[in-house]
């Protein structure tokens, strides 16, 4: 009989998926939408919310019922399932949130259904974490990690391009419209990945010292 996961183990899984195994900066998944559309914080937040709304239920449901499908059938089932969820998210965005944001994300939302971010995460649910609670913590951490990177990258690029954050002017007169190019997004993500490694190194060093003092 499987043991019920403790709160501590759930938090560890969530933290692990959020930063140390960040889907974008460590596993290099879900790069395309960040590079293409991550130049405006509004678009970034909208895309992050849509991703979370799809990734979390998809992972939890697949951890519950995924084993019922044969191995060869799982990838198409995942794609169809995430497409259905994305359709719902797109509908909510179009009808109730903002038509402008929907128009900007129009091309990228359907493409997200076959993004490696979803396919890899859902496959990992099948192979690594079968328990729904652990799967929930894992997908929540992954979605939060994706949202953090997407929002930071979008905000930085928005500042560079328009001199604003969430359309609020910051009083910056020099603009760099070329930051809209995807390759600038790549460079930014590269530096963010390096920064994450640096932070983790610092945290490890800190925890090591803490351990020494405890001893």
């Amino acid at each position, binding site marked *: 009989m499987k043991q019920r996961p403790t709160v501590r183990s759930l938090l560890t899984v969530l933290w692990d998926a959020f930063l140390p195994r960040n889907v974008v900066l460590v596993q290099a998944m879900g790069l395309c939408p960040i590079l293409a559309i991550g130049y405006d914080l509004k678009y970034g937040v909208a895309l992050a919310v849509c991703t979370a709304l799809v990734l979390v239920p998809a992972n939890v449901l697949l951890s519950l019922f995924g084993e019922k499908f044969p191995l060869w059938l799982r990838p198409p089932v995942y794609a169809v399932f995430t497409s259905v969820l994305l359709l719902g998210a797109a509908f909510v965005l179009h009808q109730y949130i903002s038509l402008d944001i929907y128009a900007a994300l129009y091309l990228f939302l359907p493409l997200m259904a076959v993004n490696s971010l979803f396919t890899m995460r859902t496959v990992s649910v099948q192979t690594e974490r079968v328990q729904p609670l652990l799967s929930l913590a894992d997908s929540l951490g992954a979605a939060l990690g994706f949202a953090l990177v997407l929002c930071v990258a979008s905000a930085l690029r928005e500042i560079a391009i328009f001199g604003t954050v969430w359309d609020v002017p910051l009083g910056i007169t020099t603009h*760099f419209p*070329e930051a809209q*190019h995807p*390759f600038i997004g790549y*460079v930014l993500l*590269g*530096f963010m990945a*390096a920064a994450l490694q640096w932070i983790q190194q610092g945290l490890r060093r800190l925890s090591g010292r803490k351990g020494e003092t405890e001893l």
Partner: protein
Amino acid sequence: MLRASVAPHLREPRHPFYQTGGVLLCLLPLTGFSCMYYGIRPLLLVLFGLLGAMFTELLCCMAAHRRPTLSDGTAAVTGALIGAMMSPLTPLWVPVIGAMFAIGVTKMPFGGIGRNIFNPAAAGMAFCAICFATRLFEYPDPSQSEGLPLWDTTGVITAVSPMQQLAGGGVPKLDLVTLLSGDFPGPIGSAGILILVASALFLFVRRSSSPYILVSYLVTCAVIAALFPRMDIGIGMSVQLELCTGLLLFCGVFLLSDPVTAPRFWLARIVYGVMAGILVMVLRHYGRFVCSEFFAVLLVNSFSAVLDRTCWSLLRRFRHWKEVVRV
């Protein structure tokens, strides 16, 4: 006793400045030649690039708590090369930005001298080409300008370069003497063809660059120019125009032969040169930019290690097979 040399020269006992100083020495007459046509501005562009690169390297070293590596001269060469690839009309801050990108993104994050995968000067130039294309590919007419203004170049009359003419379906009317004298609109470094050839020979003699790369690269470009001329101008004229205009020769002499990013094995160097030649000519035929040689350099840079490994392994197998056949 095993003596480890300073990167990137595994067997080079001399200080890296011996190599980089040679390149800077070659850039001096090249820039001076351009100054003859356009006044002091080309020299300023090269100097701004050089200072921007050195300043960025200093900042990166300070941030990483490392000893400054300015004395090896690689940052100076990178900045000077970026400045020399610009148009004489480019605003002076553009080579600084290009140099900052080259050092701050392409070189130092990978570990500094001897550890970069891509040529920093080519990357800096590619960055400028993508971000400031309109400012980079406008060239003044050398026969009409009596020294360009130092700061504001908005009123200067621009001319169509031979590269732009070829790309637009026109036929440039330039004889061999004009091509060799550099009396046509183009980047700073492309003006002195004879100086570029002399620089290549100088670097070969000092063993700073490999003749395998440059010769295979130029031969490939010439063959493609002869077989697939862009306009109906005859084989000879097509080869002359392709080889002497734009940054084709400049990139071959200074960027492709960079000892850090080029392959080490002789056969790999030949294949590398051929690949670069094919890519340059493909980009000239179908590319978006007037000068796109640095993109080709960046693309072939990524194959360096694979080429070294594959060519060495192939040659070893071939020798083994020959021995088996002989026995």
